């Protein structure tokens, strides 16, 4: 039988066992490499130096760019004599730097008009002369941000709802009538305030401070629930069919094909990386919810939960301290698989030209650029390999995790 999994020791042992697999080590290495590239993208592919000596002063233009106190401008000529020494990044181009001399699909193997081998386009260029390798670096960042953020949102919703659904089932949550009534009324009130307060505080009729207000409202709702938990409302109690309600929601959301829903929602909102991430979070939660619920049903049958219940520990404490931490391990499986799917979804969207702003270069967009010239194989092969390896790594980590959790 599965043991409690909420100790650090369990995770250490699991990681040790996983590390015995060569595939896992490779997949982990690829994911870490990807994360590294995503975090340090500005230092890897940039058309300004990492470090330079300008009129004798030492400057770090890339760091300045990141911090927002950039002292140069777009037309700065880095080869001017004022720069006595400089260190360019590994790839001396930005994803949307246009190299007019090498436009119209320069092949990686063909001749390129470049100053020195340092400025070679190792993976070729696209139609307007943007470097594909720099695009790959930017694409890595876009993929990581969108998929991690999106799956993070989906995981929070999914684990929470799935745990509630599996833990309480249809019969276990019994609340006093008045508490239910008050909860519903206050939930409606919170929804109303979330709509009206941003309008009330607005200057020109457009909603303002939306996220801040939402955060405080949710916080106060949780506090209210905690307070209500302490109030004796009387003996009359009603069972809440938590499982039924949540699973019905999951059913509805899975009835619309995920990719189409993703496509339509992203097309409705102004393009941005964060929109895509949130939309992925909204469309991916049902899978995680369903899986976590299944795991929670197994955990629910364990003796340690029965023992905790018999010691009269309140439900929410059991849920937070024992049940959910044990469900996170198995949920990691479906989260890893979801990560692969999220990257697939992101590249699918940008391949179709929906969701991302025009100045952001991603793997899917590079792939799409090849559609105007189908002999530009380098625009298809390299971004595709990036997508493929990432999905493959995420899938394999998920599969191996499944195997090891089953065996352990």
């Amino acid at each position, binding site marked *: 039988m599965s043991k409690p999994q909420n100790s650090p020791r369990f995770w250490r042992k699991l990681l040790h066992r996983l590390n015995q697999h060569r595939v896992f080590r490779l997949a982990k290495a690829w994911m870490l490499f990807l994360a590294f590239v995503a975090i340090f993208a500005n230092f890897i592919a940039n058309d300004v130096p990492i470090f330079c000596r300008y009129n004798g002063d030492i400057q770090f233009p890339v760091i300045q760019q990141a911090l927002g106190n950039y002292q140069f401008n777009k037309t700065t000529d880095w080869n001017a004599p004022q720069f006595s020494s400089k260190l360019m990044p590994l790839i001396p181009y930005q994803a949307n730097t246009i190299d007019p001399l090498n436009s119209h699909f320069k092949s990686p193997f063909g001749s390129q008009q470049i100053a020195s081998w340092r400025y070679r386009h190792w993976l070729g260029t696209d139609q307007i002369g943007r470097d594909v390798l720099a695009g790959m670096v930017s694409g890595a960042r876009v993929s990581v941000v969108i998929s991690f953020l999106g799956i993070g949102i989906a995981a929070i919703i999914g684990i929470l709802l799935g745990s509630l659904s599996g833990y309480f089932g249809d019969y276990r949550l019994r609340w006093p009538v008045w508490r239910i009534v008050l909860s519903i009324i206050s939930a409606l009130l919170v929804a109303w305030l979330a709509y009206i*307060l941003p309008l009330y505080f607005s200057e020109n009729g457009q909603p303002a401070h939306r996220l801040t207000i939402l955060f405080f409202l949710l916080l106060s709702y949780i506090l209210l629930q905690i307070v209500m938990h302490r109030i004796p409302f009387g003996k009359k109690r009603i069972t809440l069919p938590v499982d039924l309600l949540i699973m019905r929601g999951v059913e509805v959301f899975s009835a619309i094909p995920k990719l189409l829903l993703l496509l339509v929602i992203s097309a409705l909102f102004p393009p941005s990386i964060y929109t895509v991430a949130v939309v992925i979070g909204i469309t991916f939660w049902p899978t995680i919810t369903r899986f976590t619920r299944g795991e929670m049903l197994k955990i629910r049958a364990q003796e340690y939960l029965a023992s905790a219940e018999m010691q009269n520990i309140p439900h929410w404490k059991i849920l937070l301290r024992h049940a959910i931490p044990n469900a996170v391990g198995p949920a990691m499986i479906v989260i890893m698989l979801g990560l692969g799917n999220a990257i697939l979804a992101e590249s699918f969207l940008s391949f179709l030209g929906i969701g991302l702003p025009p100045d952001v270069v991603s793997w899917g967009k590079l792939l799409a650029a090849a559609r105007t010239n189908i002999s530009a194989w380098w625009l298809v092969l390299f971004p595709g390999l990036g997508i493929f390896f990432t999905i493959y790594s995420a899938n394999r980590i998920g599969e191996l995790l499944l195997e090891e959790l089953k065996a352990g």
Partner: protein
Amino acid sequence: MKRYLLRRLLYFVPTLVLVSLITFGLSRLAPGDPVESIIGISVFDEETNPDDEKLRLEEYARAAAEYHYDCPPFYFAIIPQNYPDTLYKIQPLSNRKHVTRLLRKYDDWSKIVSFTQEIAKMRTALLQIPQKPANYSATIERVNRLSLAIDNTTISALLSSLKKDQDAYPKALANIDKIDALFQQMQQTHRLRMLIPKWVWYGFDNQYHHWVSGVLRGNFGLSVIDKKPVMTKIWATLPNTLWLNLTTLVVGLIFGILSGILMAIHPQKWYSKLARTKMYAWLAIPSFWLASLLVIFFTTNDYGAWTNLFPSNGLGHFPQGATLFQRVFIRMSHLFLPVMSLAIPLIATLALQMRRSLAAEMKKPYIKTAILKGIPLRQVIWRHGVKNAIFPIVTLFGNILPALIGGSVAIELIFNIPGMGHLLLQSIYGKDWPVVFAVLVITAILTILSLLLTDILYTKLDPRVRLNHQKSRHE
């Protein structure tokens, strides 16, 4: 059994209702004015004849009434206390949006109405001036800006500059003082009233009701781009999508299940070992990437004439008097690459699932008993093992079709197949929202039907499920 199926069918009704609500809610988020997209956008400036504008408004009202855009959006609404119940009647939408923003800022409905009306009156009066003085365009520009302004400072600045213009147009700008007085009063109201919600019941004459009853009759409205009924457009593309997806499904099921069975019963053979490692890779291949690669390498002469094997466009046209064999050949040669790019991930999913469940089944004691009894291995595998191991595939079945339809969007784009996915994309690019939401609803219905089919198949195949229902009926 029948009762069980009936119950399952009834179960899908609330799901469908919720799906329709979600789709309708999303359609309300679509940017732009739906009525303007029907009648076409036109721009008004100082040269415009006020009569033209009036005609235009009449046309707008007619179109809005025809497509029920003059109705309230839903059966009921919960709105701030200071909003009027009949806000939805203000036309066009841009005016309604402007008045709503004023309402959020200045609270008092009656004053806002007279404020906007006075400004409109002033604008008409200005437009009707026969001899236009030198600084006329500056004045009309100010009035136009006033009719769009929201915040205090902009409005007061515009009002004070218009007061200076009053000498040039004493008649047209006669009501400027009245407007100013109204604005002073508007600023003095406190806005706390808007925090209190108000419930309004609108009845059945609403946009959602009309939309849903249209959908139930198969009427999804008109396409914005070419004014054709949405349903005709979808009907024209549905067969191509079904061709693509059903062929993929058949190919995927046959190859996936067979290779899964082979991998499970001969786990030590070289092909099983090879397939086991390869299948995980296949699973990770994005179908649109595979499709792009196939198009690049197998439809052009760039890499030698022998690689130009397949057509890359559409599903093929049949020449006059083509024989059945020719037809099949043309269709298949066009379908080969798209089906392959969609089927490979599907084959991998099915094969891995089949291998897992059959391997688990083959370890069970009853299989060993059957083998020890002397039943030929082939028979044991097919009659017992496969029959029991196929259930997880059946449950997967319900998820496969929606995933295929989603995935085929990109494939249809790459191979230029005029299918539903292609139509969806074109409509999204062209902001043709009625078509977009119709496709969404239709795919949702297809998904729900395929889930229902899965359920029926499952009950037909698995005696345990079937018997359980019969038992529960007798109890």
